[in-house]
């Protein structure tokens, strides 16, 4: 620790702090333009100049100067003000003063400083730039005439996002921020640069001219897309979510968001949202009142009784899950499951057997300090981009060794020294077993207090590195290096994402990952963790609250099969579009046809809802009050920003009304009362609703206590075909909901099939060609995209789009053999 004096105040701060950090700690405000908490010090703007007693004769930039013992700092004096004013005058030489039409006006750092330092005239004359605005992409608009060259966008894109879209080009007065060859921005559109820009040079296009910052009501809530649980701050004007505001004060994401979080909010405002309940009369869905709809639903459910099947998506709040369980109990059915059915369950079962837990064993911030990271199956960045940014920082700032076991290359693979262990689809298991074998063979494994070692050794007999290498295409060296790095690491992180498009081998993969966690000493060690990351906002909540089949109840897949066979007479599908998102569309179709009475509760008239007998209009995350549990077990509060369109209700209100019409007498006074009621017997028992503060509340603490039981798993099987198709998540979308949002749709609005360069060359395909994909007895017409991510013979198609009908082809396998014709 270092003690220094700032403006007569004694401050003690860490040795690594800068003068700016120290002043902030002491509550002294130094103006800045180029400084951001999450970025490395840069010192570009010279606005933060201060006087230091020991360095007399010149002014010192406070944001880049480290503190030393006994330093005496003055942050405000006549001379300092004069110099800062001059700096601002210099900046305003080129900066176009178009504040009235600039959307940043009102929250612009330059505007605020100009006002504070009373820069009313400029002593310097210069040419105003007249550069064209960059409008080549639909989401981010860049107006370089307003740029003050602070370099925040360059740094955030490089340091945090790891994309590197921007750089400075030209020299002297001509210097500007540009993309490669100054062609305009074409990136992953996470919008970090938008949130960092201190002036109006980079702005969100969907928000263009929509409102002034001071007109917006800010509502902190939790993003409704993936399980990362980022805080999003809604900017609400006239009951409409107009934009997502920058907020690095609450939550775990440090103000970082991905395209879905920042630009995917628009489905909330969609005019296609359901506004009234619909009831099927004479084969047509017609508008109806709530009383009529609820009466029909409760009559149908009562008639079905224990033959009612309930499938719910994982975007309900914990409170809603609890009420849904009550609905099931009141009707008397045990057929209850949350989305993904067997897929999610497999992962949790695998972890339960080995580590004795069903959740991530540590929290996100620890990953930043990890020495070695292993990402399993698919590129983690596509399913959980903001967690991916944490990994970026671990690799770029702390030189963590990153290994990726996946069937295709992704963004992680481009990080410095990252090792991609690209396997044939379905053989990730073999690679993990191979790593486990290396750990054991080389005596690197932690075996103290570990059960099941002998069985595992026996099971790994066929997974010698050479054998694994021959089967999967991963080199022996890569396997050994990965195993050694993981074993040598003081802190390590193992990442496993799960979701609807990743159903194959889910239990086995979780088991194999847990085996590695145990053998490397990752399990149970402070600072290390195995991260289980759900696809949906509250996947973890569904697991924690056991939204699972009860005694003799059926799981999602079994329910669908039973419905097709007529045993499950009624289906209640909440917040999920299984006709699009579930593997094997035929099975879902048969179930919907086989069930006598189908109720769908959703925001939109989805493909599944079109088949329903009653459709109930539900609410989005922006309209809800309650809690989500994210992938690191953090409970976070949602706050309603807007009211639902028409007579649509939150799922909570619908379940309550349904419970009343089913004859349940308990009425809750509010969300808090429901939370108090749901806690008993769950991991949330010790958490009060009021304790869930700005940073949420993590159940089980930063580290979960785990057991160490090794469980042998076999290898996977691969398809032997010239072309095999794998499915998964595309970076720009999440589930089926984001296909209703204009932001993600502006980038990718239609289904596609991706080819590697070699395959594209062999088939003579270019971007945009239409191809026939034939397999599993059906044929799909898809647009081709060419990229360099896929190994030869492997194709990728995202599962989000209803129009693709991809799940006619994909039935839950690791990969599908397909034939391609033009």
């Amino acid at each position, binding site marked *: 620790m270092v003690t220094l004096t700032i403006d007569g105040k004694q401050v003690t701060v860490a040795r690594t702090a800068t003068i700016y950090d120290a002043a902030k700690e002491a509550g002294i405000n130094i103006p800045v333009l180029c400084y951001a908490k999450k970025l490395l010090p840069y010192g570009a703007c010279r606005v933060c100049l201060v006087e230091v007693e020991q360095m007399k004769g010149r002014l010192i930039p406070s944001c880049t100067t480290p503190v030393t013992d006994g330093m005496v700092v003055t942050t405000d004096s006549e001379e300092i003000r004069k110099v800062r004013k001059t700096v601002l005058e210099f900046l305003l030489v080129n900066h176009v003063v178009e*504040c*009235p*039409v600039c959307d940043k*006006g009102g929250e612009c750092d330059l505007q605020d400083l100009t006002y504070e330092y009373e820069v009313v005239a400029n002593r310097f004359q210069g040419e105003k730039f007249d550069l064209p*605005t960059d*409008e080549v992409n639909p989401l981010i608009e860049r107006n370089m005439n307003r740029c003050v060259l602070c370099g925040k966008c360059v740094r955030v894109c490089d340091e945090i996002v790891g994309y590197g879209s921007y750089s400075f080009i030209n020299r002297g007065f001509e210097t500007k921020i540009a993309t490669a060859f100054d062609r305009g921005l074409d990136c992953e559109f996470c919008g970090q640069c938008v949130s960092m820009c201190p002036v109006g040079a980079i702005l969100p296009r969907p928000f*263009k*001219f*929509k*409102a*002034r910052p*001071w*007109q917006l009501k800010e509502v902190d809530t939790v993003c409704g897309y993936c399980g990362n649980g980022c805080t999003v701050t809604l900017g609400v004007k006239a009951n409409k979510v107009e934009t997502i505001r920058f907020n690095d004060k609450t939550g775990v994401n440090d103000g970082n968001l991905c395209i879905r979080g920042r630009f995917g909010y628009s489905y909330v405002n969609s005019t296609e949202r359901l506004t009234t309940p619909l009831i099927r009369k004479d084969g047509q869905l017609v508008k109806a009142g709530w009383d009529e709809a609820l009466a029909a639903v409760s009559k149908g459910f009562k008639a079905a009784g224990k033959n009612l099947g309930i499938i719910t998506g994982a975007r309900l709040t914990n409170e809603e899950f609890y009420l849904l369980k009550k609905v099931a109990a009141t009707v008397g059915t045990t057929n209850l499951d949350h989305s993904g059915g067997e897929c999610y369950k497999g992962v949790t079962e695998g972890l339960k057997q080995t580590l004795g837990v069903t959740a991530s064993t540590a929290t996100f911030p620890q990953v930043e300090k990890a020495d070695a990271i292993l990402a399993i199956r698919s590129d983690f960045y596509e399913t959980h981009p903001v967690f991916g940014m944490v990994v970026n920082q671990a690799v770029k700032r702390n030189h963590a060794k990153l290994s990726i076991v996946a069937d295709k290359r992704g963004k992680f693979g481009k990080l410095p020294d990252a090792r991609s262990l690209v396997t044939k689809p379905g053989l990730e298991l073999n690679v993990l077993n191979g790593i486990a074998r290396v750990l054991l063979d080389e005596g690197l494994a932690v075996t103290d207090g570990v059960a099941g070692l002998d069985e595992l050794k026996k099971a790994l007999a066929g997974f010698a590195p050479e054998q694994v290498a021959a089967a999967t295409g991963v080199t022996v060296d890569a396997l050994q290096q990965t195993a050694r790095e993981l074993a040598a690491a003081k802190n390590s992180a193992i990442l496993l994402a799960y979701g609807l498009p990743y159903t194959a081998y889910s239990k086995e993969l979780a088991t194999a990952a847990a085996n590695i966690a145990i053998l490397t000493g990752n399990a149970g060690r402070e600072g290390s963790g195995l991260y289980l990351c759900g696809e949906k906002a509250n996947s973890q909540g569904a697991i924690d609250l056991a939204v699972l089949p009860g005694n003799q109840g059926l799981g999602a897949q079994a329910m669908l099969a039973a419905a097709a066979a007529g045993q499950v007479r009624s289906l209640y599908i909440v917040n999920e579009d299984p006709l699009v998102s579930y593997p094997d569309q035929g099975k879902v179709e048969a179930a919907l046809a086989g069930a006598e009475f189908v109720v769908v509760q959703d925001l939109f008239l989805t493909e599944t809802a079109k088949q329903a007998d009653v459709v109930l209009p539900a609410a989005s995350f922006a309209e809800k009050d309650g809690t989500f549990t994210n992938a690191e077990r953090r409970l976070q509060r949602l706050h309603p920003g807007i009211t639902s369109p028409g007579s649509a209700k939150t799922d909570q209100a619908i379940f309550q009304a349904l419970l009343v019409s089913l004859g349940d007498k308990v009425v809750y006074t509010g969300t808090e009362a429901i939370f108090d009621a749901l806690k008993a017997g769950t991991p949330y028992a010790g958490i009060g609703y009021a304790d869930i503060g700005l940073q949420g509340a993590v159940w089980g603490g930063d580290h979960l206590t785990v057991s160490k039981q090794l469980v042998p798993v076999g290898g996977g099987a691969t398809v032997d075909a010239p072309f095999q198709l794998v499915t998964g998540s595309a970076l720009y979308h999440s589930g089926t909901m984001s296909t209703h949002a204009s932001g993600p749709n502006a980038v990718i609005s239609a289904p596609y099939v991706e080819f590697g360069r070699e395959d594209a060359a062999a088939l003579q395909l270019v971007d945009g060609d239409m191809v026939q994909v034939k397999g599993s007895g059906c044929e799909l017409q898809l647009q081709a995209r060419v990229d360099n991510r896929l190994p030869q013979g492997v194709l990728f198609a995202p599962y989000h789009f209803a129009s693709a009908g991809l799940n006619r082809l994909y039935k839950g396998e690791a990969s599908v053999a397909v034939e391609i014709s033009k």
Partner: protein
Amino acid sequence: MFKEFIQGLSITFKHLLPGHSTTVQYPDERLTPSPRFRGLHRLVPTQDREKCVACYLCPTVCPAKCITVESAENEKGEKYPQVYEIDLLRCIFCGYCVEACPVEALEMTAEYELANFHREDFKFNKKRLLK
């Protein structure tokens, strides 16, 4: 004392003579208000559009909250007021809106005959304000 009475009343009677009245025979006669009179608002037009750039400063500064602005982007990519409306029943004619305008797009005219028969007629939209 009597003398003083006469002196005082002579002033009074002088004012009763024709040509000394301050009353204006409205509507037969009308006064010309002073140049800084604050009457009905007017949006200043330019050649092809209104000068207003929809910066929202006037509705922000308005103490009576009588101005409604909705901005939008026109074909040229410029910001313009898609909706600009002043509710004169709420307006207190303080002139802050004119003072706040950074582009001198709003001014107050000498128009003071604002009586009307219907409430809706007191809502001045962009078309009426541009006249």
